[in-house]
């Protein structure tokens, strides 16, 4: 007769072992990335993605290991919280790093904010500064048209 208890025990132990090894692997990759990558922005890539995935794997292993609904709920709460907060804090730190003037790697291919941030006035514009005037003019014109009632018909 098939022994369900021993089968589930084996499966859960195997899943826990696999998830733990995976999580530690991702954490190690994150740490190596922290040491090896050239600037803050690329390092943030490693920290947000690799760190989130590694911690997520380990906490889900925890949820499987204890085999209780309450502990699984608590563990999934941790996972949900980390998945929600890691992108937010990564975005905030990247923004602050750009404003502080953290150096960008010289082989970076594309910088979307180049010419859009004015360090004197701490103003961000949607387009680089030369086109900024034209864009603001178009916006003003449209606002005047709407206020004057020309677009009502």
């Amino acid at each position, binding site marked *: 007769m098939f022994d369900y208890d021993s089968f589930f025990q084996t499966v859960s*132990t195997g899943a*826990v*072992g696999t998830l*733990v*090894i995976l*999580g*530690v*692997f991702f*954490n*190690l990759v*994150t*740490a*190596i990335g*922290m*040491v090896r990558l050239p600037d*803050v922005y690329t*390092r*943030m890539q*490693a*920290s947000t993605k690799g*760190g*989130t995935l*590694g*911690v997520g794997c*380990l*906490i889900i*292993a*925890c949820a499987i*290991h*204890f085999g*209780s609904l309450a*502990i699984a709920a*608590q*563990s999934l*709460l*941790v996972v949900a*919280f*980390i998945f929600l*907060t890691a992108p*937010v*804090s990564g975005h*905030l*730190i990247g*923004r*602050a*790093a750009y*404003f*502080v*003037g*953290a*150096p960008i790697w010289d082989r970076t291919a594309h910088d979307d904010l180049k010419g859009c941030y004015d*360090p*004197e*006035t*701490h103003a961000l514009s949607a387009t680089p500064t030369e086109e900024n005037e034209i864009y603001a003019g178009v916006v003003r014109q449209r606002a005047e048209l709407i206020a004057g009632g020309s677009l009502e018909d």
Partner: protein
Amino acid sequence: MSPATDPHAPDVTHAVAQGAHEAAHHAAEQATILLLPYSHEPIAWVFTIALVGLALSMALSVGRVVIGPNVPDRVVSLDVVANICVASIAVYAMATQRAGLIVVAIVVALILFLGTTAYALFLERRARP
């Protein structure tokens, strides 16, 4: 008659020494049980290797905290250190069968988010003229 010269007094020092010895033995046994409840099963090796790997990655991240050339570098690598803290708490909870440690992981994750956000806002405010 002083207790030291009383031949019928109980041997206090011997009893104290024996009690201390028993307490130490009990503590050692307790520690062994608490740290390695699965030491006869192969999953204990997985947890041990996991803790060693997490320690290695934490050492690498702390190295970046030390050598990081400016403040955002250090904030990002401290973020990684706290993440590895949460991971270590999870592995330790599994290795010692203490489910209550998950709550500690929740609290550390909360404080990690608050700390990173506060530092980012502080940096941004400092950059503002």
